[in-house]
């Protein structure tokens, strides 16, 4: 039982990171039909932006974190929106998919060639203190990840459902044509989703790097898992992505402990196939209303 709880907590903490990456993934899909194959790299890069600020320019730690988030929003949000997605948005899904695959290579190789091919330690806001309750050990850093991720998600939900801009964004996601007729500034709403995606990815990056180190290749598995989490949870729902992320995080740990470490990656993928076969809209998604 203790083991199970330990796995559950660890899985949730990792799953929260996946959820942050998966939310952005679904947001981009909804508003601009962008399947972002570079999403994993979006979570890898911000930690290096912070490292560059700290180690190359001597910026203090907390300021570096803020800078990293802002720079990510600029690079992975605005620049991504206008330089890469912009020219391709009307050309269908495939060219954009190809372009994001190329982007993932570009980001990964740039970090490797310009910064380092080696894993880097990353300072943490929260001390690595252990809390042990009933035999289950959790580090403060892990709890921090979970807490920050959950607060971010709640804020995002409130923003989408409770504010005027948020509702305009949802309208854009559901039907851009109608939204435009109703006077929603669709272009700006699309930009907002890109900014939110970049900010969430940066959050995930800065939360995960102190625990698991920063490395240029970290995005490979992360991107795949965010993708799987988004589809499993429901490609068109933010809450689906959250549930998908947490579920995959926990499932991965349980599979490694109780099924097979060699096939731990297989379990989420089998779940993915089952979901596609029996509930294609995802566990929490609704049926796609728009004809693609």
């Amino acid at each position: 039982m203790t083991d199970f709880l330990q796995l559950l907590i660890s899985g949730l903490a990792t799953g929260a990171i996946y959820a942050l990456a998966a939310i952005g993934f679904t947001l981009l899909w909804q508003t601009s039909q962008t399947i972002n194959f570079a999403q994993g790299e979006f979570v890898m890069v911000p930690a290096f932006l912070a490292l560059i600020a700290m180690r190359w320019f001597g910026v203090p730690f907390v300021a570096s974190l803020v800078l990293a988030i802002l720079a990510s929003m600029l690079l992975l949000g605005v620049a991504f929106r206008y330089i890469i997605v912009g020219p391709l948005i009307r050309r269908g899904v495939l060219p954009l998919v190809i372009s994001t695959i190329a982007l993932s290579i570009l980001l990964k190789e740039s970090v490797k060639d310009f910064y380092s091919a080696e894993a880097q330690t990353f300072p943490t806001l929260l001390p690595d203190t252990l809390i042990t309750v009933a035999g289950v050990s959790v580090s403060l850093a892990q709890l921090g990840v979970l807490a920050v991720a959950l607060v971010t998600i709640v804020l995002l939900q409130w923003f989408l459902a409770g504010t005027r801009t948020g509702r305009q964004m949802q309208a854009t996601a559901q039907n851009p044509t109608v939204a435009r007729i109703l006077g929603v500034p669709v272009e700006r709403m699309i930009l907002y989703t890109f900014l939110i995606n970049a900010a969430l990815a940066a959050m995930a990056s800065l939360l995960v790097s102190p625990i698991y180190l920063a490395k240029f290749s970290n995005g490979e598995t992360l991107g795949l898992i965010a993708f799987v989490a988004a589809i499993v949870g429901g490609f068109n729902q933010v809450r689906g992505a959250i549930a998908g992320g947490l579920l995959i995080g926990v499932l991965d740990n349980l599979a490694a402990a109780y099924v097979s470490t060699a096939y731990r990656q297989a379990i989420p993928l089998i779940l993915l196939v089952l979901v596609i076969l029996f509930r294609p809209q995802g566990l929490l998604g609704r049926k796609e209303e728009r004809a693609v």
Partner: protein
Amino acid sequence: MSTSTSLLIGLLLLVLLALAPVDLNDFGVPYPGLRRYGTYILTLWLVTAIAAMGVNLIVGYAGQETLAQAAFVGIGAYLTAIVTKAGVPFGVAFAASGLLTFVIGIALGFPALRVQKHYLAFVTLAFTVLCWLVFRNEQWITGGVMGIRDIERPTFLGWPLRNHIRFYWFVLAITAIMTFVLWWIVRSPWGRAFTALRENPLRAESLGIDVRLYTLLTFALGSAYGGMAGSLYAPLVEFIDPSPFALGPSLLFMLMVVIGGSGTFLGPFVGAGIAVLLPEWLRAWETWYLLIYAVLVMVMMAFFPGGIVGLLSRLVARKARS
């Protein structure tokens, strides 16, 4: 272009390619012939192009996305390596590779195509990673991460293909046959149905074309091309391990087809050529070639989403008009 002109150009290309590794100085032509490495690279290009032709069929003609081509190449490669080492003739292994990947293609595509567009991509993505895990973990049959060593090159009608030039000719002949078959399929009524499908699925349906069945068969056939490419890959490299059959290489297959020009007949050859030869061209840049490649792909997509062949044919058309 008329049928006979196309065939003639194809034949001419075939002869030129066949002569590429031959030293022509004896025949009074100042051409030294490709060395071992050049021949190896050309053979690798042909094998890659076969797999890319399969992707092109799925992406360019049926309008689907497949992220499983490297896995199909892997299935063909492993099957061939394992059974030829057990003494089965290469011809049988080659046919079995094509057949097995065709059947798997049907089994994989049937449920996925029931659902929605893009879902085939998701299913093939999962399939690729699952295959890679099996290649890697089932050491008793696949050799696991240590791979399979010393895969023999086959003998063709008593003619050993150990020599690199002979093996190149062998692969070239197979590529030519497979290209011709595909060319014939694309031009057959069956192939015209694909084109109709791509241009206007709704109209195709109203004309009585069973869209789902056609898409499924295309996917299976494209996958079988991957399997057969794999069957040639194993004796070419004489060693296989799981790394070339992972998800990343599957994405690169999509990339090369779109870069070459998806839906164009020559696109896969151009795309595969770039993928195989580009590291060679940019060798002086060491690892930077990946950065350059990535930037080129993004620029290409932004300005010429039709790929290189699409771009060239547009330029030719413009010249013809003016």
